[in-house]
């Protein structure tokens, strides 16, 4: 496939981003790494020869410089389909770089970076002129811009704009899939949100809202909370309830046993919380508390009562919420760094199963 565009991202070799904004394919890349406004469009020119493109930079001051790396990298090329793929690059003159992309029918060595889909962890930090290094190779007076983080889809090589990956990861931790929705990955966001929240709600329902709580008192370490903490929407209330109930206040933030740890024998709580528990039922009534002014002292073991009342549902509910929390850690990672890199089929340069499926469905493989 003849090359139609080139994207130069900000990599360890230094330099700023530049491509031909007049080209319809390279202008697509402007979505996640726009050119600075003060660089005129005619500052970049390129000529295409087969699977190579010769890029001429005329706004680099004393010339291009390859810093912090033995060779140029961070270049990607696109064919007519508009999908960018990693490519090899070399300098032939102080202001000329030749970028060569994969050609149809040819196969390089297995570790040749042209033919392997870039790992998700190799994110493009496409940021034209974003720091002192870009100033060192030219672009004087350029306006620093926000770094843009981009992952590459292992399926078709398309760029995935991760926006602010730290914020996306935090959102996905808070509510499963929310980070993906923030990144505009609606399908995956909806999928994660629907499936994991369903598992969480089913678990909470089976456990009558009492299976998610935090407790680290001697003899009552809730290890399941470590897994449940993978979802912030339940981890935070559980922590708040526990800290306040075990603290000087002696009652949780909201007077309910939801997310609150069970009362241990001789534990003192406020009369208001004791009354709320008695109203709630769940094996506790007003006679279970002694008067210890200004508090009420519990007699009995609330955890044992929960387990007797709920039977195996307590364990199943705990399991559902723990599994949901642990799986959400993968979702957080997906929001932070994009899809995980798939295994490569032995003897080929394709992700496992990709070549067969591409042939079966009449689709083109990534390259």
């Amino acid at each position, binding site marked *: 496939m003849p090359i139609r565009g080139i994207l130069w991202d900000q990599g360890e070799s230094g330099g700023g981003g530049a491509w031909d904004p007049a080209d319809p394919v390279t202008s697509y890349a402007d979505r996640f790494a726009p050119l600075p406004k003060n660089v005129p469009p005619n500052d970049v020119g390129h000529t295409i020869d087969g699977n190579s493109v010769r890029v001429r930079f005329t706004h680099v001051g004393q010339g291009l410089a390859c810093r912090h790396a033995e060779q140029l990298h961070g270049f990607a090329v696109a064919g007519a389909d508009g999908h960018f793929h990693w490519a090899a690059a070399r300098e032939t003159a102080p202001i000329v770089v030749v970028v060569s992309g994969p050609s149809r029918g040819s196969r390089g060595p297995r570790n040749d970076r042209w033919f392997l889909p870039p790992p998700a962890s190799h994110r493009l930090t496409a940021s034209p002129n974003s720091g002192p290094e870009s100033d060192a190779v030219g672009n004087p007076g350029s306006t620093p811009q926000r770094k843009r983080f981009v992952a590459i889809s292992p399926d*078709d090589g398309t760029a*995935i704009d991760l926006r602010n990956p730290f914020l996306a990861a935090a959102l996905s931790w808070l509510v499963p899939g929310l980070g993906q929705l923030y990144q505009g990955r609606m399908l995956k966001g909806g*999928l994660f949100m629907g499936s994991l929240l369903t*598992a969480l709600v089913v678990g909470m329902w089976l456990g009558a809202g009492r299976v998610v709580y935090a407790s680290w008192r001697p003899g009552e370490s809730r290890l399941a909370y470590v897994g449940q903490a993978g979802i912030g929407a339940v981890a935070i209330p559980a922590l708040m309830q526990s800290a306040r109930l075990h603290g000087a206040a002696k009652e949780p933030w909201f007077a309910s046993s939801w997310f609150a740890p069970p009362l241990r024998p001789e534990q003192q709580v406020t009369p208001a919380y004791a009354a709320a528990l008695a109203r709630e039922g769940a094996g506790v009534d007003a006679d279970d508390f002694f008067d210890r002014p200004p508090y009420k002292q519990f007699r009995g073991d609330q955890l044992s009562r929960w387990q007797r009342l709920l039977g195996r549902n307590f364990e199943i509910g705990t399991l559902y919420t723990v599994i949901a929390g642990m*799986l959400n850690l993968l979702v957080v990672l997906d929001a932070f760094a994009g*899809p*995980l890199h798939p295994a490569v089929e032995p003897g080929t340069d394709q992700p496992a199963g990709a070549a067969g499926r591409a042939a079966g469905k009449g689709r083109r493989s990534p390259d």
Partner: protein
Amino acid sequence: MIEPLLAIVLAQLAGRVPGILFGLPLLALASLIFAATHHEDPAQIGFASVHWAVWLGGILGMVLAAVLLLGWMA
């Protein structure tokens, strides 16, 4: 040789049907999440979900069968 063992496993399994029923949705959930965190294309996610379900189901099924057999033998 296989048939008596299979009968034992099935008999043991029958006593644990509720547990297995509750476990199957978790298996499907894990397969879906594993697939969706490895792919971006919806078709690939569907294909990989089945792939993961077969693997996880097979591995966990083998473990369950071993546990049931050991339990019976003990």
